[in-house]
């Protein structure tokens, strides 16, 4: 038998951390190729005879298309195809379904409904020629009045954006309601204090550095369509392509190779993908489409753009009696949220899940506007980012209205350890946590009491110091399948494990990494369950022909769901290995005990066999009647979501002369249950805190009155660099999830979800003497300066002020 890195001897258990199991910060498997420039991203895929596609986009936000003249484009040497909506319509592909049961134009036929919308595309021998030919297409538009916010959308006489939809008489995309209205009204009638807050969470774009793209390869000899795609969810895409393009699903293969960041942006199916597929079918050649950055920022899935109008009912001694709010989402021209079917505004009703709030009521409405479609789960679990930001801004405003210390107010309302499982006012069941402990760890780490003294001293000298707290739990790991589906497909996940004769293994999963390091961490789960060293396990994903069906990676669901499936399939393997061990040890199965990496005879511990010996026996020496081989699969339907908790605390100093604010310190305390690879967990948290800083400080998209997008490239859409980004001090508390096989919870997004409120609360705390109640994110210097000098709140809602 081939030796392993840390071979089990059959006579003693293995050290789990040494062999790369749970708790090991083993270096990442993926790094070996990435640091050498040997990754394989969609843009790196080159196929023989491949053609190149470019998209022509609308310069106007709202306009009727009067004519499209493509003759000059066709005349350019090297052009193979010029595709318009009219031509796509002949294949019934001018429109496609969205993930929220709306329709979206693939190529515009009647009107353009947002700036950057896809109007036509060109396929040529060379991408430069394709771009030239796009410029040669002449489109005649009749401009229509644009709508850039929900208020305009419902104003009397507002133009109807979706005149393509039968029965659509206004610009309302959906309405939704959850909670107990009567109970909430009754609680408000008893309140000593009612705290109110209105704000806008700005539109933001996930903006992975790799833009979207596809290489579509339709083989007209075999009828097979292979698509290399920048996708976080290749199996969903395969199902969607089968439905949209009416191709047989077994003849569709979606391959997501290395993906250069996703953050929710690469979940939906985009018009460019459909065009590339159609163009490959029409030309019978492989067609590559690589979106440029402006295309990515102006047409693909954005996040947020939500308005809050809230009230909280309070007693004088700081207990929350009830919360109620109305949320309005700006959906853009098509309702294209990537979210579970049942929930029209994602899981916004997970807000206040960490507080002991008896009753609440939420109403929500989505509006069509002449802006890019989307509403994707941008580094969060389906609008949970807005939910937690609203919650923590309302908490800060309420504590201020009560004249109560921010930490004390939270302490009085956080769910206590003995209340789990806890039913929230909006129907969720939180699984576990140590909320008060996390808060205390954070307060101790930041030196809360000392800072308050320092802050008071600084104020005497005219310096504005502030501290902001954000505490939250979030629902990660959808399903269960009773409540969660996308396009009717239940939100389970899957894993398939094959152990080869020499004890090496390949794990195939339905999830899809975009930097989370699944090739490293999922092997660690197998190591934990079987004692096979992690270096002996390869993890494969992202190819629908060769991995089991899974719902993909977003909403921090990989570890909670696919990770659980991995543990479960390993346990199936172990069960069979136990039978093999009994056979090899010549004892009955009941007399065989397991410890990491080996089975042994109860009462005779030195008599044992390793998992590797069992694997060899599965192919060479199985007992009579046993099926050969050592492989299995598992589909895992989680009983509940996992509920990680986080406490983030920022301290800042605001310069009253410029409105610029600097982060002095930032402390994060995350309880994401059992940590599979602590190094990777901390990497996820630091990445999320950086996005949180970005959104609170600089990163947003807005539109001017004419519907022009402000933030369509990285010169206008500001992302923080190493220079601006603060440092983070991380702490941990571990409360294992009681229902996850290895006690893990989701973590990839907590920091991006809970982080923004910590920064904003800190700046608002610094400005408390001015009486300002709210500045909308991002807290740009001019907004902060304006608030500090006028004492007035500052709205960031579009249209963008150009004066």
């Amino acid at each position, binding site marked *: 038998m081939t030796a392993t890195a840390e071979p089990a001897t059959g006579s003693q258990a293995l050290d789990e951390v040494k062999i790369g199991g749970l708790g090991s910060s083993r270096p990442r498997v993926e790094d070996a190729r*990435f640091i050498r*420039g040997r990754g394989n991203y969609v843009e790196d895929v080159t196929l023989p005879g491949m053609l190149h596609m470019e998209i022509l986009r609308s310069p106007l936000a709202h306009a009727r298309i009067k004519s499209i003249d493509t003759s000059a484009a066709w005349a350019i040497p090297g052009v193979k195809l010029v595709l318009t909506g009219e031509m796509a319509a002949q294949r019934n592909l001018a429109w496609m379904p969205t993930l929220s049961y709306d329709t979206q134009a693939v190529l515009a036929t009647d009107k353009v409904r947002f700036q950057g919308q896809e109007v036509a595309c060109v396929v040529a021998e060379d991408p430069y020629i394709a771009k030239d030919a796009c410029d040669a297409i002449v489109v005649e538009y009749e401009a229509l009045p644009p709508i850039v916010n929900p208020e305009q959308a419902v104003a009397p006489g507002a133009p109807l954006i979706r005149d393509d939809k039968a029965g659509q008489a206004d610009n309302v995309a959906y309405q939704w309601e959850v909670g107990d209205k009567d109970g909430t009204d009754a609680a408000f009638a008893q309140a000593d204090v009612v705290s109110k807050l209105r704000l806008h969470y700005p539109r933001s774009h996930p903006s992975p550095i790799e833009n979207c793209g596809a290489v579509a390869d339709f083989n007209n000899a075999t009828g097979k369509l292979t698509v290399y795609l920048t996708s976080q969810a290749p199996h969903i895409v395969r199902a969607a392509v089968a439905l949209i393009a009416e191709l047989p699903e077994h003849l569709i293969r979606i391959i997501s190779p290395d993906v250069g960041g996703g953050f929710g942006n690469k979940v939906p199916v985009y018009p460019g993908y459909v065009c590339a597929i159609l163009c490959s079918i029409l030309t019978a050649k492989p067609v590559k489409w690589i979106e440029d950055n402006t295309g990515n920022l102006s047409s693909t899935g954005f996040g947020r753009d939500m308005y809050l109008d809230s009230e909280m009912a309070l007693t004088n001694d700081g207990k929350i009696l009830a919360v109620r709010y109305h949320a309005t989402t700006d959906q853009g021209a098509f309702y294209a949220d990537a979210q579970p079917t049942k929930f029209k505004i994602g899981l916004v009703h997970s807000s206040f899940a960490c507080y002991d709030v008896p009753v609440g009521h939420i109403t929500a409405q989505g509006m069509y506007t002449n802006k890019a479609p989307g509403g994707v789960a941008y580094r969060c679990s389906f609008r949970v980012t807005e939910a937690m930001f609203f919650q923590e801004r309302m908490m800060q405003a309420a504590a201020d209205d009560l004249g109560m210390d921010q930490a004390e107010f939270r302490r009085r309302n956080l769910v206590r350890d003995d209340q789990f499982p806890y039913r929230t006012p909006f129907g969720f069941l939180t699984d576990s946590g140590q909320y008060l402990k996390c808060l205390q760890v954070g307060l101790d780490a930041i030196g809360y009491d000392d800072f308050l003294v320092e802050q008071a001293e600084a104020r005497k000298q005219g310096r504005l110091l502030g501290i902001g707290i954000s505490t939250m739990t979030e629902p990660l790991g959808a399903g269960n399948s009773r409540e969660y589906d996308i396009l009717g497909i239940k939100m389970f996940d899957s894993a398939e494990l094959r152990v080869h004769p020499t004890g090496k293994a390949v794990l195939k999963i339905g999830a899809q990494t975009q930097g989370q390091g699944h090739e490293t961490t999922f092997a660690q789960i197998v190591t934990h369950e079987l004692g096979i060293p992690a270096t002996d396990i390869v993890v494969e994903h992202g190819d629908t022909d060769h991995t089991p069906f899974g719902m993909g990676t977003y909403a921090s669901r990989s570890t909670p769901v696919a990770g659980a499936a991995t543990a479960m399939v390993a346990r199936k393997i172990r069960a069979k290995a136990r039978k093999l061990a009994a056979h090899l040890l010549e004892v009955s199965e009941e007399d065989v005990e397991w410890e990491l990496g080996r089975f042994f005879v109860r009462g005779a511990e030195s008599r044992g066999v390793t998992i590797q010996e069992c694997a060899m026996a599965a192919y060479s020496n199985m007992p009579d009647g046993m099926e050969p081989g050592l492989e299995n699969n598992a589909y895992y339907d989680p009983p509940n979501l996992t509920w990680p908790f986080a406490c983030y605390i920022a301290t800042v100093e605001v310069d009253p002369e410029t409105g610029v604010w600097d982060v002095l310190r930032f402390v994060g305390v995350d309880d994401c249950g059992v940590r599979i690879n602590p190094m990777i967990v901390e990497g996820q948290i630091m990445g999320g805190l950086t996005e949180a800083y970005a959104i609170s400080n600089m990163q947003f998209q807005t539109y001017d009155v004419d519907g022009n997008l402000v933030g369509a490239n990285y010169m206008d859409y500001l992302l923080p660099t190493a220079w601006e980004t603060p440092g983070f001090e991380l702490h941990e508390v571990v409360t294992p999830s009681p229902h996850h096989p290895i006690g893990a919870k989701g973590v990839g997004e907590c920091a991006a979800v809970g982080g923004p409120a910590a920064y904003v609360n800190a700046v608002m705390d610094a400005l408390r003497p001015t009486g300002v109640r709210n500045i909308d994110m991002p807290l740009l210097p001019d907004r902060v300066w304006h608030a500090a000098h006028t004492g007035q709140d500052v709205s960031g809602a579009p249209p963008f002020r150009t004066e």
Partner: protein
Amino acid sequence: MTATEPVDTTSDTGAPTRRITVTVNGERRVAEVEPRLLLAHLLRQGLALTGTHVGCDTTNCGACTVLYDGAPVKSCTMLAVQADGHEVTTVEGLGTPSELDPVQEGFVAEHGLQCGFCTPGMMLAARALLNRNPDPSEDEIRWGLSGNLCRCTGYQNIVKAVRWAAEKEAQ
């Protein structure tokens, strides 16, 4: 240039081209290119060095950073013909087949990468920084890498990775 020297072509569309000679990762390469061809595209398509990534097209993200006569440049906004007669180093030229550059080792050791897309540009910017300042402070590293965007890691580990490399090279 010799008659036997291989010539890489990036376009066969009949557009006027110009022959250029660029030393890429120490190897002399000759190419026929359209004058408008971007250096990033010559490297990726013409020379099949796909480790150089293109992110933003506006010189902001730095994913396409390469070393041009030793200095970091963004190859997405530089023309290939401008590199005629010059030396270019891409990520494929970092380290040797048998030995990694300390910057590469540092990025692994300190978990300085996640999706890997910004990593080649980030490492080349770091290499250039260490070449001109072998012992940079945290602030100097942060400033030195401020032309490169990363969306996954949050920079803290990237800064540590560069320090790791500096310390290894000081030994």
